[in-house]
């Protein structure tokens, strides 16, 4: 089984290096096809591993080589395939394979085609390291690796000012969080003496509550950055500057779920500190509502989907925080499928509309883009959580968890958010595909994407529909590792009331969205209508003014402080010292070069001078050595 592990792990790396070879050469199809094939191999290996684990096999644990061994510190390059990591591997490899194939079509006309695939495969490799590592150090490498690749990919169109800005923002935000993560890892090592998951978690049960709380908090700060939780959430929406396949892969399906994965992986830790878990759940619920509300009014197609991702991540954290780790992981998986589908569909629409992102300028696209229309509608249905799509099983489960655990506030927030989710998803669908053909005003002639792109997307569609039926199989597999709590309501009546009530609420929200946006009266907003001047609308469309606050109260003071340090400290102290040393050496050289007159006679005089100095030193040291006892006596007499 080890061989499959290595194939699954390293074929993305090979693909990345292969595409990287063509980095400087013009666009070649092969640079896209080979990485896709290699990734498909990786997917197949992951499937073999999944089947093996499902068949009740022992978890595969390999230690490739020693990475660091110094004193008591021992960190190997160790990889583990167990029930949790194999789930993540499946999600990552499946979605990335599809995104790779899709990208061959999507990036067809881009100059950076080869470079793109190199980055994309490198990203998958980092993600695989992240999920497969058996220790915190390996996790951190993958963690930083995906951070780096996401920076490269968000800023892929580096000639665009906004793209480079967004890339830097994402990177810096993640750095802030990674500091917390790093402190958490140090604390783990400090208190348990090891970074291997198994030993560390085993040692944690005997630790002080306070230490555990700090570890939990710091690790969660890391997770907050990568999963874009409040207040580090702003980068995710701005990251939509990257190519759409990147958004689908990184900012929907894989990278942002790394935070959830970390919390799930660290479940023995969070089980010991339920109060931190409750905080995580509350923050998750808040983010779910917060992000959904921003998605209500946004006029950028990709940002709307990004906010919905943010909202769904909130759901996952609620589940993880309440101890329902398997539910969080299940929602992660289901969400990855339909969210990637939604993004890829959005990519098709963008292509068709020549990079137009405002859904108000589209409308009536269902006639020209039938395939995309069906896929996006079904993905939105899944996202809204209608029976029997994937979202129903995973999202309603989270609601049930909140209810069973008797956190009614969280439950009602999540229920309300579910309605909002349905509304904004279908607002988007209605605006894009229904109603009047507003794009004609702008003189755009939309066309459907390549056939093979749609074919590539179809597995995701299939999974978005049927993923829910794996629930029991999945439950049996994962609970070998995670706490096997089943969430059942005590009375059957309450269960049915809740389920049907939720479904009705969601369907009503959808109907409302259709009624409001799927008619011919929708106009391109021009800032004059009544609703647009509403205070609420303004707050929401400006993202609660949070980017503005960050800019005004964090970025600007920091810039001022930096410029003070630059002018006062750096220029006047540091630079002056360095320049001074250089100046002294330079001027002494300038003065002593007179000695090098080239005249042998002068040089001989200098030579004799040097000999005298050396001889006097010899005499002095000889005398000191000879009379060291007496000298010491004199010095001590002087009181030195």
């Amino acid at each position, binding site marked *: 089984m080890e061989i499959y592990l290595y194939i699954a792990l390293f074929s993305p790396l090979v693909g990345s290096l292969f595409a990287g070879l063509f980095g400087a050469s013009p666009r070649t199809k092969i640079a896209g096809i080979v990485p896709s094939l290699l990734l498909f191999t990786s997917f197949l290996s992951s499937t073999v591993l999944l089947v093996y684990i499902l068949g009740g096999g022992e978890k595969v644990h390999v230690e490739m080589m020693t990475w660091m061994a110094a004193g008591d510190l021992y960190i190997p390059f160790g990889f583990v395939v167990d029930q949790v990591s194999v789930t993540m591997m499946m999600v990552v490899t499946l979605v990335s394979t599809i995104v790779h194939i899709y990208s061959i079509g999507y990036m067809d006309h881009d100059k950076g085609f080869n470079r793109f695939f190199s980055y994309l495969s490198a990203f998958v490799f980092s993600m695989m390291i992240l999920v497969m590592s058996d220790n915190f150090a390996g996790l951190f490498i993958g963690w930083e690796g995906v951070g780096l690749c996401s920076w490269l990919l968000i800023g892929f169109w580096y000639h665009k000012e906004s793209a480079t800005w967004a890339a830097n923002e994402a990177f810096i935000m993640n750095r802030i969080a990674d500091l917390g993560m790093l402190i958490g890892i140090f604390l783990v090592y400090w208190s348990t003496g090891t970074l291997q998951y198994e030993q560390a978690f085993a040692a944690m049960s005997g630790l002080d509550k306070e230490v555990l709380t700090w570890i939990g908090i710091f690790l969660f700060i890391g997770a907050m950055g990568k999963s874009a939780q409040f207040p580090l959430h702003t980068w995710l929406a701005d990251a939509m500057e990257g190519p759409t396949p990147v958004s689908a892969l990184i900012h929907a399906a894989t990278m942002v779920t790394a935070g959830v994965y970390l919390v799930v992986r660290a479940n023995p830790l969070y089980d010991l500190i339920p109060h931190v878990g409750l905080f995580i759940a509350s923050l998750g619920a808040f983010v779910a509502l917060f992000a959904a509300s921003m998605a209500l009014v946004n006029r950028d197609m990709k940002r709307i989907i990004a906010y919905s991702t943010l909202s769904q991540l909130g759901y996952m954290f609620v589940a993880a925080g309440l101890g329902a780790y398997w539910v969080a992981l299940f929602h992660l998986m289901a969400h990855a499928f339909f969210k990637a589908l939604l993004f890829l569909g959005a990519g098709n629409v963008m292509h068709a509309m020549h990079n137009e992102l405002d859904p108000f300028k589209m409308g009536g696209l269902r006639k020209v883009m039938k395939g995309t229309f069906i896929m996006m509608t079904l993905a939105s249905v899944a996202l809204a959580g209608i029976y029997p799509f994937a979202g129903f099983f995973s999202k309603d489960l989270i609601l049930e968890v909140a209810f069973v655990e008797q956190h009614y506030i969280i439950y009602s927030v999540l229920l309300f958010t579910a309605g909002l989710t349905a509304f904004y998803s279908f607002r988007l669908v209605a605006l894009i595909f229904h109603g009047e053909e507003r794009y004609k005003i702008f003189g755009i002639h939309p066309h459907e994407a390549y056939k093979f792109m749609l074919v590539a997307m179809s597995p995701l569609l299939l999974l978005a529909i049927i993923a829910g039926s794996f629930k029991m199989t999945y439950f049996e597999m994962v609970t070998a590792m995670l706490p096997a709590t089943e969430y059942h309501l005590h009375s059957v009546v309450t269960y049915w009331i809740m389920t049907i009530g939720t479904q009705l609420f969601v369907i009503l929200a959808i109907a409302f969205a259709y009624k409001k946006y799927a008619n011919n009266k929708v106009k391109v907003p021009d800032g004059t209508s009544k609703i647009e001047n509403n205070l609420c609308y303004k707050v929401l469309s400006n993202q609660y003014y949070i980017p503005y606050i960050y800019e005004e109260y964090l970025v600007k003071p920091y810039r001022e402080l930096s410029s003070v340090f630059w002018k006062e400290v750096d220029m006047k102290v540091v630079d002056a010292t360095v320049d001074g040393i250089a100046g002294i050496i330079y001027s002494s050289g300038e003065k002593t*070069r007179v*000695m*090098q*007159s*080239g*005249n*042998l*006679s002068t040089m*001989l*005089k200098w030579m*004799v001078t040097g000999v005298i100095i050396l001889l006097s030193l010899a005499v002095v040291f000889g005398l000191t050595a000879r009379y060291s006892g007496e000298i010491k006596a004199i010095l001590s007499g002087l009181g030195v």
Partner: protein
Amino acid sequence: MMEIGLNHYLVLSTILFAIGLIGVMRRKNLLLLFFATEILLNSVNIAFAAISHYYGDLTGQLFVFFVIAIAASEVAVGLGLLIVWHKRHGNIDLDHMSTMRG
């Protein structure tokens, strides 16, 4: 005073060494500079021989032997270079040799 000891030889050697150094520093003619270096070598030779004699150790004399060998080869090579220089420039004045100027 009348008993000649090692110190007498060492003082003599030092005087000769000083004379040699004076020559090295004040001579501008390359050939005469070589003479001065010969004086330096010989002054050291005297010291070696004297120490060898007064301590009953042959090492000093062997060193003198090797110093003489070195002096001989130095003269051979030095004179060769001197001739080359003279052929090219027509003089052997130290003040004209300043191609190593820094």
